[in-house]
């Protein structure tokens, strides 16, 4: 070889040129060259929120499961603001100081945020867990529902930068028929009966109290107890009466018949009948899929649909969930986070009411086996036209490392959708922020700076929250659809959207804020369009039953669509 180069320098030169050109061609042709990347701009943002679980040496089970985050535009300025839930003192479960306040940060449009918690009157009460944001009274201002161990609060957005606690008036305090407050974690706004008003589903977890709290692990290195040590609880469904009040329809609807250990809830019309169905991620118990029977009742069909357990017929520690069409076949699929040693189940909706496990075939099985996940979101982070997966990771128990088996602090993970049914772990290339091991919990997704790329905000126990701006080096196109229902609920939650790019590529998504772990994401619906600058068609199936079609729609913009 060396002799050839000496003998034929021109040949060597040509070889170098050809090699270079080939490399260049490959780069252009390779679908893997764009890297999904995130940059943590927490310091610059001024978001100084630290998730405070008020932990004590006994490590009661409540101190590991908090941390819901919401991304929503509370002041209608067109930019997403951030709301964090927070813990409280243990065992009083009171927010006895600012370190325990829930926090609202207003987006200043320049990458910075201002803490407006006190002015907005949303500092909260009790040991908070999750949050769900939506405009429940159709007044054009997004409201908040905050769940917790001992207090659930519905905040009405007054439209002037302040909120009012309307929990009692609305009748959504999260208590059972005997007035006992149930420990709530996840919540979801959706219109189950398509009457134009958003109803509220509350996922309840364990029958825990300070009095029945158990000790697990060795003294001096206590661990969070397994949910098997406590009884489960029924979930709650509140029907919106349209007058600022709600009716608890848990019993009448069939929702209350099931006792679970619910951590998160996600909604989608899995069977395409025009009514939103409910998936509840239960911790070490079979998951629930509540099929909506024409907006009148629900029947739990997790076993029938083959989503109750893993392919091995066992429950996992289901934490977060996203219920979204991952393969653009028009049917919403499920991705669930769980604990180390369990892998994160991926369940593909095969139609005819059945799901099939695709965890290992998709490349998520072995890759997630050592991860413990909380938040999860299926978004097209690189705008290539395929929804990717983001997971916010951490073990449950703060003292896990002392037992040598697992790590409490873990890095988040990003899995790139290769478009052929497989996902590739792209974390290593996703930037320094994605390599940081921390006690991540809830995550909310949305476009913080309206640049067409989906960002993420993650709460972290004991550390400042991560404000992850999407800095992916993509030049692919996108569209962000902001819905306004008229006959349907004003947020358009539940609207199914089909986009057909100018190339003919078809994608599906639907409007929901119930994403991931106990968190609430941007209500706007994002699509990456790949190389398509325009949409040939945009089709919407509103919850009211109306079907709306827009033709020849330009991309790379926020498109407001009003129900007609």
């Amino acid at each position, binding site marked *: 070889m060396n002799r050839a180069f000496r003998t034929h320098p021109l040949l060597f030169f040509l070889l170098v040129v050809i090699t270079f050109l080939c490399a260049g061609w490959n780069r252009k042709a390779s679908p893997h060259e764009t890297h999904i990347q995130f940059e943590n701009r927490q310091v610059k943002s001024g978001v100084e929120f630290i998730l405070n679980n008020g932990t004590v040496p006994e490590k009661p089970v409540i101190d*590991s499961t908090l941390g819901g985050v919401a991304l929503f535009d509370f002041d209608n300025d067109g930019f997403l603001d951030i709301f964090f839930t927070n813990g409280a003192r243990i065992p009083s479960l009171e927010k006895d100081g600012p370190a325990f306040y829930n926090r609202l940060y207003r987006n200043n449009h320049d990458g910075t945020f201002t803490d407006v918690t006190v002015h907005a009157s949303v500092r909260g009460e009790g040991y908070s867990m999750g949050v769900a944001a939506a405009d429940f009274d159709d007044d054009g201002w997004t409201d908040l529902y905050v769940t917790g161990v001992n207090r659930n609060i519905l905040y009405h957005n007054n439209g002037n930068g302040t909120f009012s606690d309307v929990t009692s008036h609305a009748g959504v305090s999260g208590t059972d028929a005997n007035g006992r407050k149930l420990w709530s974690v996840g919540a979801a706004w959706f219109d189950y009966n398509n009457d134009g008003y958003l109803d509220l589903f509350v996922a309840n977890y364990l029958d825990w109290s300070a009095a029945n709290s*158990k000790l*697990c*692990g060795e003294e001096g290195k206590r*661990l*969070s*107890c*397994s949910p*098997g*040590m406590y009884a489960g609880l029924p979930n709650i469904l509140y029907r919106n009466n349209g007058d600022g009040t709600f009716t608890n329809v848990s019993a009448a609807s069939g929702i209350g018949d099931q006792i679970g250990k619910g951590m998160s809830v996600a909604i989608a019309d899995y069977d395409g009948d025009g009514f939103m169905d409910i998936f509840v991620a239960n911790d*070490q*118990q*079979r998951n629930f899929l509540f099929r909506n029977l024409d907006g009148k009742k629900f029947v739990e069909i997790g*076993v*029938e649909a*083959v989503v*109750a*357990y*893993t*392919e*091995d*017929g*066992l*429950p*996992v520690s289901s934490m977060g969930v996203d219920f979204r069409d991952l393969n653009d076949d028009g049917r919403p699929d499920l991705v669930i986070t769980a*604990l180390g*040693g*369990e*892998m994160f189940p991926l369940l593909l909706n095969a139609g005819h009411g059945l799901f099939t496990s695709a965890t*290992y*075939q998709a490349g998520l*099985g*072995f*890759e*997630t*086996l*050592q991860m413990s996940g909380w938040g999860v979101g299926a978004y097209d982070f690189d705008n290539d036209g395929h929804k990717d997966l983001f997971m916010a990771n951490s*073990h*449950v*128990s703060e003292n*896990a490392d002392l*037992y*040598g*088996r*697992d790590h409490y602090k873990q890095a988040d993970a990003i899995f790139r959708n290769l478009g052929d049914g497989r996902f590739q772990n792209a974390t290593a290339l996703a930037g320094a922020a994605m390599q940081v091991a921390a006690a991540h919990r809830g995550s909310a997704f949305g476009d913080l700076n309206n640049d067409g790329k989906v960002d993420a905000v993650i709460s972290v126990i004991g550390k400042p929250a991560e404000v992850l701006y999407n800095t992916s080096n993509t030049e692919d196109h996108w569209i962000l659809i902001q819905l306004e229902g008229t006959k349907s609920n004003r947020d358009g939650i539940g609207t199914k959207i089909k986009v057909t790019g100018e190339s003919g590529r078809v994608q599906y998504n639907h409007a929901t804020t119930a994403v991931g772990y106990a968190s609430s994401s941007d209500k706007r619906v994002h699509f990456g369009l790949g190389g398509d600058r325009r949409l040939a068609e945009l089709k919407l199936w509103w919850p009211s039953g109306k079907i709306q079609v827009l033709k020849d729609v330009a991309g790379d913009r926020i498109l407001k669509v009003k129900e007609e």
Partner: protein
Amino acid sequence: MRALAVFAAWLVFSSGLRPQALCLPVLPPSPSEDSACAGIEVELESARKALDENRLADAESRLMALQAAHQECATVLVDLARLRAAQKNNNAAEELFLRAIQMPSVDSTTYSSFAQFSLTNGQYQKTDYLVGRALEMNPDDPDALVIEAQILTMKRQNDAARRALEKACRLDPKNAEAHFQLGVWFDNRKLHSNAVQEFEKVTLLRSNDPRAYDYLALNLESQGDAKNAEEAYRKGLSVNTGPYFDSFLDYNYGRLLLKENRLQESRTHLDRALTLAPETRAVQYEHAKLNMRSEKYREARVDGERALSLQDRGGFVLDLQVYYLLASVYSKLGEEDLARKYRELCRTTSVPVQSAARE
């Protein structure tokens, strides 16, 4: 998900699968035996080699000759006992061990060999006594420490068991069984990276041990390292014969292949696993899953129903798992009544709490 490694752990302790006397420690004549056993080293070595290679007739003739010439040598009696155990003549083996420990030349290794024999035969109280005697005579007897660790594990004195195994490994770094048992200890506690280290050592020290490869693969799998797990399974299968034969290596490998949706390859191994262990629920269940995935629903039904009929002593495949599978199988076959029955069982069957704490 239940760790697959647990399954392999059970295999080692299950009497039917563990090579009987052939895995008893091979003992050099101890110093105290010098006079009684003088000059037998070469012939004894040949006899042991024959024994290890399962040439039992050859071993017998050599050992009988040695015993006739050295009637006071306890080591020869111990090897004869090993031979009888290999011949499945446990009564004779027991008698020989009893004679050996009454010899004046008895030492810790005689007791530890007897203890190993008793352990293999499930005589745990006797093992406890014998290994205690061995360690009284020599607290640094690595083989005795390895046996003691297994007894301590049964007594749930896990930390003490680990210390004993680590001491054995320190005293005799080339003691494959010490590393093997330490690997099992780690495996049982899902300390996968530690387990991998130990089983890698075993595969170097005792390269003909398919169980070590099996364990190694299972622990690599648990770490998400499917590629190296597959390599370990393949190496294990290439030596899966002789005294350490592992009936479940094909099962575990077939299971990995099924996860990867390599159905044809999986079938090759799960078919073989079914031949090797037809009475094992886990094997029947996995075969049913393979048939389900292959859309062979009738075959899946047969496997699934068979799995349900089998006792599962170790609780490796719960009734719930079989119910969930059968519910889908019956549904696919249009047997709606049966499907409904098993779906209801899936709803009402509770899952045992694996662990109180989230470690």
